[in-house]
């Protein structure tokens, strides 16, 4: 047996295999969606994956303290960026979600998905255990979630606002806040749904209504959902075969390489491809959940649990949307959809969780 150097042993090969598997499958779908071409999507996406994977591996080497120390600063900085975007949008006379940094368009709301989890994890890690069931444990978290969520809603970006809320709430939940707080909030939320609904923009309301009854407008706003379901449904068990998807190749499926890439895939690879992809995501989430359970510090635990939820939320909402179980919100499928922003977010999450995993391997666990 050839001895493996420790430096190579320390590289998380299994995780890289999972990530590469999901992304690689995505590249095949992008190749097909471009009509059998590596450009314009597949090649870009592949290069981007390699870059971001390296970034994640580097982040994974950082000591976990750094994230804890910079949690609030990062949160506040990104909050300021969100306000800046809002002001720029106001000045520019329209809705704007990104800042042009020259080399890329930065979406602060994407970064906020990660920052809110870290900041709340830091908050609950510092909170004395005795205060867990007190109001002190609640209001700062509410403010920390509420501010960015409100700003993102103003953009308006319902999907990201929801992602921020879910990430934050899950951290609060695993931090041990009383169960009935969540229960009663959920009930109150359901009751207030019609009121909230009235706060949505017209087009958002329309999307929700069409989600509830897509056949009501199969050619207008319900078009996305109808065509996506047709693509998935017509794929059957084995799919129509690689490069043979008529829905995507003949442009019936809108956004077939970004938000609706799952439908593009399902049309050609069928149920088998869909289950394989779900299995890949299952492995990824199982790894991150294990990281959370094995984390050595409370900050690590809470962060890993929150980031797991953030990744899961992407996957779940996207898949529900393409299968007609959720309204059309612009949320891409992590690692699979073409696009830099979401991949950056996911790989940042993965990097931080790698750091937590490394941390748990080095020292003794403080608690079980």
């Amino acid at each position, binding site marked *: 047996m050839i001895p493996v150097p420790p430096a190579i042993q320390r590289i998380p090969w299994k995780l890289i295999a999972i990530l590469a598997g999901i992304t690689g499958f995505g590249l095949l779908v992008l190749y097909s969606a471009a009509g059998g071409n590596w450009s314009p999507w597949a090649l870009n996406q592949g290069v981007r994956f390699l870059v971001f994977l390296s970034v994640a591996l580097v982040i994974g080497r950082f000591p976990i303290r750094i994230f804890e120390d910079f949690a609030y600063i990062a949160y506040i900085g990104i909050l300021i960026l969100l306000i800046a975007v809002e002001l720029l949008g106001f000045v520019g006379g329209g809705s704007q979600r990104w800042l042009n940094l020259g080399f890329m368009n930065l979406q602060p709301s994407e970064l906020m998905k990660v920052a809110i989890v870290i900041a709340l994890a830091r908050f609950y890690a510092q909170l004395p*255990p*005795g205060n*867990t*069931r007190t*109001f002190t444990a609640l209001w700062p978290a509410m403010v920390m979630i509420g501010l960015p969520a409100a700003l993102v809603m103003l953009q308006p970006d319902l999907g990201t606002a929801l992602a921020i809320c879910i990430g934050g709430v899950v951290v609060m939940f695993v931090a041990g806040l009383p169960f009935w707080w969540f229960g009663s909030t959920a009930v109150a939320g359901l009751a207030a749904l019609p009121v909230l609904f009235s706060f949505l923009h017209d087009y958002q309301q329309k999307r929700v209504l069409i989600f509830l009854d897509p056949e009501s407008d199969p050619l207008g706003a319900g078009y996305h959902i109808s065509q996506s379901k047709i693509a998935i*449904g017509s794929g059957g068990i084995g799919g129509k075969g690689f490069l043979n998807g008529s829905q995507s190749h003949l*442009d*019936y499926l809108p956004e077939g390489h970004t938000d609706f890439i799952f439908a593009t895939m399902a049309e050609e690879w069928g149920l088998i491809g869909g289950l394989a992809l779900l299995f890949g995501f299952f492995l990824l989430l199982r790894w991150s959940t294990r990281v959370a*359970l094995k984390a050595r510090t409370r900050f690590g635990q809470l962060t890993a649990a929150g980031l797991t939820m953030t990744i899961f939320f992407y996957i779940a909402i996207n898949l529900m949307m393409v299968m007609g179980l959720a309204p059309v919100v612009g949320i891409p499928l992590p690692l699979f959809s073409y696009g830099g922003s979401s991949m950056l977010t996911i790989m940042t999450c993965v990097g931080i969780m790698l750091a937590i995993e490394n941390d748990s391997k080095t020292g003794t666990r403080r608690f079980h």
Partner: protein
Amino acid sequence: MPTKKKSPPITEAWRGITFTRRALVVGGAQAAVGVALAARMAYISVIDNDRYVLESESNRVNLTLVPPRRGWIVDRSGKALANNRVSLRIDIIPDRLHNKELVLGQLQTLLRLDGDTMERINRDLKAASGFQPVAIKEDMTEAEYSSILVRLPELPGIAPQRGFARNYPTGAAVGHLIGYVGAPNAEEYQKAKDPLYITPGYKIGKDGLEKYFQDMLKGQPGARRVEVTARGKVVRDLSTQPDVQGKTVHLTIDADLQEFVARRMGRESGAAVVIDCQNGDILSFVSMPSFDPNSFSDGISSSEYAWLRGDDHQPLINKATRGLYPPGSTLKPMAAIAAVEHGVDPSERHTCVGGYRLGSRFFRCLGTHGSLDMPSAIMKSCNSYFYWLAHRLGYDAMAPTARLLGLGEEYQLAGSNQRFGTIPDSAWKMKKYDQEWSASDSLNAVIGQGYVLANPLQLAVMAARIASGRRLYPRLINREFKNEPLPFSPEALAVARHGMDLVVNGAGTAVRSRLPLDGITMAGKTGTAQVRGLGTGNGKSGTWKFRDHGLFVGFAPVVNPRYATAVVIEHGMGGSRAAAPVAKDFMTFLFDREKAMEALETFEAGWGGTIKERMDRDYAAWKAGASKPDPELAQ
């Protein structure tokens, strides 16, 4: 917010256990959602698979019906009276129209569509659904068509098509004969339930022979299956089934004669029918003025339709079968046959003193003809002589003869809508008016006035039957009729024919209409039908609408007749003046085309061009001054 219940003290250890528990709850919930998603996907792709495969195919494959080419309508020698020409058109597929305003705006600019058209398109788009195309424009020029073709990528939902449109080479000359085609209306679609009916470019027969022979002419539609993108771009043809052209309808019409007759009618309003004396073939069937069936088939504009409706010469009415006229003196040969059949000696003479006294009333003759036998009475068109016959025999003796000659009869004739008029007798009058037939009724009837009404087709049939001595049945297509001999004595027919010969070639009323040919002569009988009641106004001048109708029936050659005809010129002020010259020219045409064409061209130069040139000019003038009063009426 402390809870009322006494809770255990919160320690770090408790927190750790809570975290693990709750993380597992969250993980479990995530797993549950994952399973639910897998189940949902399985449901869509396995259980609902059939439905979605179908929907995906209906997305991908576009089946378009190709309207069949309509069968031709040809004359006796195979010359087209109605055929098809290539027509360039564009339609909108509503399902593929994503940016309606932009696309319609572009089309409006490119094709210079007017407001009415845009309104129609918008209305049709609202009513249409899915892939049911909506017509934008038909009969485009090559330039317009290619201007759309090059911009096709920017105009999603636009479908250009190279189709066929109905074409009538002789235009207005065949309007009333052939009818016209048009796009099916909603009612017709409801009745037929045929998707072809709502395919742009598909036309059905709406009138005349086009309607009558619809089943024969329509053909079988073709189909084209193509793979299309969401924007309507055709990726490739999957399969094409060619259309089957409709069957050709062969008519007995002589296209050249038909056109000549129509042109020779000039600016007059009237009808002319020519029948082959050998078999009853209708060689020409003209009612003028007419409409251009090409205009109708392309979808006539409302102003053109208003122009046609407003014309006091009634171009929309087929006068050959729908026009009823008092036949006037054209019935005198018939009366002569009836008289001979009832034992009157044709050489018996009666003296015309300028009229005939019946009781206290004096029935006028147009002249004072002196002593006449039967043929010369026909030649001179002497009323007195026939009053005398009618008084002697009674009209009940003559009416059966009239009916045997085809008057008062509705024929089984393809595609025609006939008003068949009246041949009165005592039973008819009793039934209709509950009055006894009087001697003066007989006198009026014998000169083709009073209750007697006939249409030009019937008059032509009468002429053909007198000429042939057989009961010829008029026909437009090759149907077999017995055409048995008429139950008249050869003498009776000979007297009538001889009289008619004298009318043209003796010292009769139509001597100026003798045929300008060597060895071929025409026999005939003029008639003048009073529009106003007898004796009121002279009918020879004044307002057009109140002038007398001119009629002429005839046949040629006198020996072994080949062609029979009837001509009616509305308000032509007399048969010899208006109708006989027309007959003379087209009868000449049948024997010597060049000579006849020369005469026609001279006439047309005077009238201001061919039918089409005149119609175009009249229409333009009408549009220019639609509100101005009719100059004819203003006289």
